[in-house]
């Protein structure tokens, strides 16, 4: 039995920004078994061809994913998900169009869960008007400010590139610390949304180890907007190196995720002599302003995971070997 936390992704943003399109896109494109919790089925329409069974409070999807509502509260939805058979590998919560994503993200602190990221969608054509609307200006600004990953959707509807640049700069100002990514039809690469490595090694199947998966999905990561870098680690790393890496990630980094063995600070003086027993496995993550480093329990009966750090960056934002060199320089 794994004690790893189920990663939670919150999808927020004002009405019409493309949250439902994004959820459908994730359900279609991810290799993970995902449980989606929505405010109500009235607002969200899961693409019908994905649904294999529907009852009043639960939809079962072809790829093992399920979709529940908050009809009886979050606790009840979680119970329903846990009792639905195979446990999901990720929880996606779609906030209502007027919800404050920060409040929804609080559910990510339920024991057994871990907040991965708050993704907020903005409609490229409408967001300026909405952010100055008589009724919802404050609501929309609150939503934007809550983002780790701010998806500027329907960017293709703006007639020229300089307008898109202006818009993204302006949005970055409303959402300090968030990573701004552009998208059309909510087609954000899955690895950008959910991270370049699976959050848990439980996701790895012998046929598809994590890095291979990441490599396989890299083809659609790129899409001439993003590029990725991966460093495979053959030895534990000193904790301060990781801390320093996470502390000053350049703006161009969209997502970073790593599974590694770190040497606790006390014993770093003599890192060369460190025995395996002194190291702890950690999952490190960075998205927008949110960085985390959490102990990652490993199962002794299973082969050890591949230790590696991957990142996704805006294309051209980083020198080609930035990650490898950065680790070497700090080491």
């Amino acid at each position, binding site marked *: 039995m794994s004690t790893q936390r189920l990663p939670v992704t919150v999808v927020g943003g*004002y*009405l*019409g920004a493309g949250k439902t399109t994004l959820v459908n896109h994730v359900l279609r494109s991810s290799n993970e078994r995902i449980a989606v919790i929505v*405010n*109500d*089925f*009235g607002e969200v329409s899961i693409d019908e061809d994905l649904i294999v069974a529907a009852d*009043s*409070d639960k939809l079962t999807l072809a790829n093992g994913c399920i979709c529940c*509502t*908050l*009809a*009886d*509260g*979050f*606790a*009840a939805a979680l119970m329903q998900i846990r009792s639905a058979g195979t446990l999901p590998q990720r929880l996606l919560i779609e906030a*209502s*169009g*007027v919800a*404050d994503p920060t*409040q*929804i993200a*609080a*559910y990510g*602190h*339920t*024991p057994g869960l871990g907040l991965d990221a708050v993704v907020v969608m903005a409609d490229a054509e409408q967001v300026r008007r909405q952010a100055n609307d008589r*009724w*919802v200006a*404050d*609501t929309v600004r*609150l939503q934007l400010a809550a983002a780790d990953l701010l998806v500027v959707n329907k960017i293709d509807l703006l007639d020229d590139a300089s307008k898109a640049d202006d818009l993204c700069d302006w949005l970055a100002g409303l959402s300090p610390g968030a990573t701004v990514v552009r998208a059309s039809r909510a087609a954000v690469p899955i690895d950008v949304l959910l991270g370049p490595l699976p959050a848990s090694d439980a996701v790895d199947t012998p046929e598809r180890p994590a890095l291979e998966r990441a490599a396989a999905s890299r083809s659609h990561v790129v899409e001439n907007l993003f590029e990725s870098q991966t460093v495979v680690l053959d030895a534990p790393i000193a904790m301060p190196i990781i801390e320093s890496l996470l502390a000053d990630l350049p703006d161009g980094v969209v997502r970073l995720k790593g599974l590694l063995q770190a040497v606790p600070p006390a014993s770093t003086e003599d890192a060369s002599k460190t025995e395996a027993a002194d190291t702890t496995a950690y999952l490190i993550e960075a998205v927008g302003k949110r960085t985390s480093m959490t102990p990652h329990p490993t199962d002794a009966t299973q082969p050890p995971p591949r230790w590696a750090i991957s990142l996704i960056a805006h294309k051209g934002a980083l020198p080609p070997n930035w990650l490898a060199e950065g680790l070497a320089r700090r080491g």
Partner: protein
Amino acid sequence: MGTPQPFVIYPARRVITINPAFPFGEAVAVAGDRILGVGSTDELASWGEHRIDDCFAEHVIMPGFVEAHCHVMSGGLWNSTYVGYFDRRDPQGQLWPGCTSIDDVLERLAKAAADMADDSQTLLAWGLDPIYFPGERLVARHLDTVTGDRPTLVLHASGHLATINSALMDRCGIDETATSPGVARGGDGLPNGELHEPAGMMLAGDAFVDMMKANRSEQARWRYANEARNAGHTLLTDLGTTQLWDPDQLNNWKKVTSDPTYPARVMVAMSNLFGSAADPAELAELCVQLKSEQTDKLRFGIVKLILDGSIQGFTARISWPHYYKPPPGHIGNGLWLTAPDQMADLVESYHRAGLTVHCHCNGDEASEVFIDAVEQVLERHPRWDHRHTVQHCQLTTPDQYRRMAALGMCANIFSNHIYYWGDQHRDATVGPERAARMDACGTALASGVSFSIHSDSPITPLGHLHTAWCAVNRVTASGQVLGPDERISVPDALRAITIEAARQIKMDAEIGSIEAGKLADFAVLEDDPLTADPMALRDIGIWGTVLGGVLQPAQISDA
């Protein structure tokens, strides 16, 4: 035709009919479940074979009170121990004195724990209102002194917070490692047992789920109606359920209301918020379907929407200058629970299906958005006599009332707020000027808007004489008059709790006044509200009700 059937004449001290064409009578005659007539005993006797029942000879008979906004939850909560600040009578008629200090709360909990047979059973309590204990705070440490190892959960009156004891924290794994922002911490940095908002409260797991489940039982529905009978009510509107998709919940309502002894009629309003499985078109269809199957005691036809939060929780949408003295860190204004952009389309779905939309609007931004939506929809699809209603209507402005009158909208005003939170509204939420014009029955009346007043029970106790007392006197809990110019007369308040409430749920042809042919639903009072001192309105005793001709004596069990 002659006599419809053998009938009963009830002579009374006075019958107040709320029918302006025949305002008073000496007696009322009841044939089966209907009113045969009102007048003098001799006039009524001339209908034919009858029996005279003198049981109400010393009483005043009024139309049964109509509550157009409360919740069946008020029946379910009595499964848990009441620890609120104000006196409250349970559906069995037992008076629970208010807990006016933290010690009172603890004493009540200690007694409840002692009365529980099973040591492992969770102690559930409700109604705690810390706003009345400034400077003090009930935390797990206090609870532990009286509950020991028994898991305990106390739900606050606001519904947004719960306080649990250490035993329940242990059971739910809430300790210093908790990362949830919903877990409050004390000065020592450790969780103090307070759980905030749904994300925090859900950490209490089964205890919280059990408390909410109790609202779905048959027993909750009986208690809901018993409480109504004890307060003189004959109709309750359960304003906003998402559960009618569940055949068990629908059958539950059908079962209790088809029992001839069930002491209330119930209008069940449907809601598509908070996780209903419905899109508006489906919901409208179900509601129309249910309406076609309704009975005299179980009614449908209203759809409930919610636009904003509450004023005392600083979550209602209030226009500039917004809140007067909000708590530190407040975001500036309240929350939308439905996107304003969506309102017109939502209203349109139900409006076109011939249903009536009742929308929760506490703040004036919310009422403005709802009125705008109704106006747009009426332009697209003109329809007369829709009676779409602004619910709570607490900060609705005079210009909004004028628009409501022009559009044919009704208001259901939350008069009880004046008493229960009026002092807080003046001193903290909206400040003196706006507090003085809150819950503006006087303005509604002057604008020609049909209005009722409500308790929103369990938020405040059900009891229309108290609610009318609030609208008439506008006296706060501290005894001060808030906004004397918005006070209304006793006759106007009595109309608001009977015929006007019936009107906004479209039942005024059947109930709400005592007239030949209407359903025989009465509130039977120990004194005359029209001659009593207006300040004593809420103290008038209630014998009980008559529902469809069946006598329903109140249950009062003061030890």
